[in-house]
């Protein structure tokens, strides 16, 4: 890794003043489970690391009648261990337990998990986030078995890596960000974007913005995350689906469905058609909705099928049905 300056502020105000106007100037160091790997492989070379381990106000988890407030530096283990999360937002709990590395859960934070960089092997091997050469996309011409099957018409072919983002979006969570210019709040869905040119990032955060906390509404307890992973230990899902339902007896009153690991951003599925259906009907319809508009590459057709299965199972799991 490169030589860097290390800063360890104790307040958010101090932390954001230490960030830079570009990502090369400074990077936020939370658990370090992603950043340090990227630095060791020289994928990123920030000149300064701003550790937020000493910023007490960033950690912590609290529940009130309206929802959960989760500090960005809360560890993934804290989510897993929280009874409030397990009861009020089971989909969040399931997503956190799906991160099968004990080390990542112990060190990794909620903010870091949401804002981790894509796991694309072209990116990780130093060929760029969009992995392009003179002939166009390396991903398209190369081995794209784990790459995007939605939202991949442009240069970006990677999949968004966050396990928490889909369910947070499905639950309508909001993120609060701080910069030297002040504070702003945004839906979690709007933290992510699809970069069009090399140099652009997959998040909408400005280089000097720090994610401080999340507010997760916890109305209906009928929500779930279903991931399709091959290994029991640390492994990235090949597809995931998060579903939040409001039920009216046997029927679906409201539904939200977000896919993970299939597109450069968490992929929001249009599930208007689920309203009024029984849970079983809704599950089948969700599966069909989830595969609609897919644009797989020749080597990742299977991911469309996995998205469909994950979506169907997520609806059933949200309604506490077995699948």
């Amino acid at each position, binding site marked *: 890794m490169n030589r860097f300056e290390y800063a360890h502020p104790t307040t958010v105000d101090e932390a954001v003043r230490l960030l830079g106007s570009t990502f090369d100037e400074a990077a936020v160091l939370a658990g370090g489970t992603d950043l340090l790997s990227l630095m060791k492989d*020289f994928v990123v070379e920030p000149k300064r690391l701003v550790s937020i381990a000493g910023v007490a106000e960033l950690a912590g988890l609290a529940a009130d009648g309206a929802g959960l407030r989760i500090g960005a530096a809360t560890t993934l283990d804290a989510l897993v261990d929280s009874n409030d999360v397990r009861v009020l937002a089971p989909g969040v709990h399931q997503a956190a337990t799906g991160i099968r590395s004990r080390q990542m859960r112990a060190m990794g934070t909620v903010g870091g998990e949401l804002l981790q960089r894509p796991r694309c*092997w*072209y990116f990780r091997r130093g060929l760029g986030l969009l992995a392009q050469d003179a002939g166009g996309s390396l991903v398209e*011409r*190369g*081995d794209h078995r784990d790459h995007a099957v939605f939202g991949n018409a442009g240069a970006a072919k990677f999949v968004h890596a966050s396990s928490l983002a889909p369910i947070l979006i499905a639950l309508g969570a909001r993120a609060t960000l701080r910069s030297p210019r002040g504070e702003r709040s945004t839906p979690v869905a709007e933290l992510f974007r699809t970069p069009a040119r090399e140099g652009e990032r997959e998040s909408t955060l400005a280089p000097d913005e720090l994610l401080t906390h999340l507010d997760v509404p916890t109305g209906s307890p009928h929500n779930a995350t279903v991931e399709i*992973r091959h*290994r029991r*230990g640390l492994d990235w899902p090949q597809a995931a689906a998060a579903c939040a339902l409001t039920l009216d007896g046997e029927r679906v009153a409201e539904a939200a469905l977000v896919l993970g690991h299939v597109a450069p951003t968490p992929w929001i599925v249009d599930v208007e058609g689920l309203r009024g259906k029984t849970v079983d009907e809704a599950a089948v319809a969700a599966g069909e909705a989830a595969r609609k508009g897919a644009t797989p590459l020749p080597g990742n057709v*299977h991911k469309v099928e996995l998205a469909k299965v994950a979506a169907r199972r997520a609806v059933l799991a949200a309604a506490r049905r077995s699948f």
Partner: protein
Amino acid sequence: MRDVEKSWPSLADARHLGKRIDRIDGPVKVTGRAKYTFDVNRPNMLWAKFTLCPHGKAKVLSVDVSEATRVPGVVVAKELPLPGDATCHWHGFEVAVVAAETEEAAREGARRVKVEYEVLPHNVVDDTTDVGDWVDEGRSREQGEVDEAFASADVTVEGEYGCPIITHCCLESHGSVVEAKGDAKLEVWPSTQRISSIGNDFANELGLDPKDVHADCQHLGGGFGSKFGFDVWDKACAAIAEETGRPVKAMLERDHEIMVAGSRPSAYAKVKVAARKDGTLTGFDFESWGSGGPSRSGALRMPYVFTEVPHRRVHSNVRTNTGPNRAWRAPGHPQMAWLTMAAVEDAAAALGLDPLELFRRNLAATDRPDVYAEELDVAAGLIGWKEKWEPRSAKKGVVRRGLGLSIHTWGGRGHDSNARTTIHSDGRVDVECGTQDLGVGTRTVLAICVAETLGLPVEAVRVHIGDNRLPPSGASGGSTTVGGISSSSRTSAVDAVNQLIARVAPDLEASAEECAAAGGRIFVRSDPARGVAWAEACALIGQDPIVGNGRTDPELMNSGVGGVQMSEVEVDVETGVATMVKHVAVQDCGTIVDLETAESQVYGACIMGITSALFEERVMDPVTGRCLNPDMEFYRLAGIGDVGELVVHMMQTDAHHGRGVIGLGEPPVISPLAAIGNAVANACGVRVPRAPFTPRNVLSALAKGAAR
């Protein structure tokens, strides 16, 4: 008649041999006191790192190390000798080496070496023969009346199967620590599978007298056949140590390790099987291909095990610009087993037969029908084959279970080995042997053989290995170590104890021939009460210890084993996720020295095989020729949660015990891929032709099956 016979005691008489004995170096390993080459750090040591070619194939036009030498801490930066055509033939080919005061500075320096390349056309595709000039002419062979067999067959079954290149993935990567000691003497700590002879390579490289090179490797973190070489990194390490007069450590980074330090060739085949309705196999026709990198990989000798069935085979070699293959635990055998056993299982399915029955009916076509028959029965009992097996067509539901099996064979005769047993006047015993422990329990084997011979507890024997100053012993490859070292240590201990008995016998008023050593005593056989304790006996030795010398003895070892494995898997046919439920391994290996470490060897092999079946694949980018997964994140290995229940049964009857010691390293790793592949086919109802059995490969097979 000798006082202590060299032949192994019977199962009934043995005190230690064949019993379950904890490995003697377990405590130093679990407490971290065991020092591997990677752990060796010398005062004032430099770290060496390499500049690697980032292309599939490229000619080196120029190398400029000037910027590297300006990195603070860098001491040496230099070009490495290239082949005559100045061409790098794979991603990861070493172009330059940088040595520095710290690991970080060396890494930084290696990145600063500027290399100008002319990128050349490459090939990294090996799963098809449709790659133009990158394919070498097929070699063919025929045995028996093959055409006639197919013409008269009741049924002919065709299939296509394959498995990709995988790597050795040693937990400890390759490399050495080298220290020049002055006076043209060298101290080396290589991570090697041949400690007795590796020092000679260092000596030759630097023009030293081999006796002036001391090589030491107390523990190595895996080799699997990839650590026999004297490699470019060892040479560079030695050269820098000589040039700077400072110790140098050159251990490969994980990506370097995965890209260049050893791989197992891929293997693919179109297979035709001719059979009669009753399941008798009458003919095989194999059209196979595969790649082991830029040069020719070993041919696949199929059919595997069922060698007496008439057959034709033709094998083509696909050249790829990938790090070259090295011997991978049972070279060629796992691939041959998979390509053969899958076709046999598909023939059984086509005939509507239970594959276990079909295997049984064809054992006459193998080298050891009786052993397989016995082992098939044991394995079937352990996995519950009779109760559980159902034909593919009976499988229903989303999550389906399936059973599969495979059989294998290996030689495993011991290599040349020398050993020395020393008995001291204070009763202490040392055994010395220039062998190495790849992590399998070599020390424990030596302690058991000597303790058994001297009639002492295992912990009474101190074991010295991993040093080229000890009596030379062969390289550890091909399951040759245990046969070699058990016989050399046994004969050395027999020599030593008989010398001791000769000194004690007069005091017991008996002839040496009348005495024995057992239970920590030397005594008269006909009157066991007439004897002395070990310490008392040793007190008679005097100042010069008793030294017993021994060497490999063909009468104490043997060659040729069978082995049967059965697997139960669960497949979610919607997600394509295949998981292990249970895996049974039944294995013979002649005289078992330590039942516990023998079982461990088989457990480890099963895990390695399960990993190759479900997860492993070295992925190359066709456009850039680069390796895409040279890391432990995307080069997927099984974790403990992925292996399911493992059941190991060692064949330990008087008949097996009486054969002599036979190696065990390779045989149990051969069958897992084939057995699991067959279980996946049985569960899914369709053959998943390509390993690893990932969701992608499983779903792709299911989709094709549905389309048919």
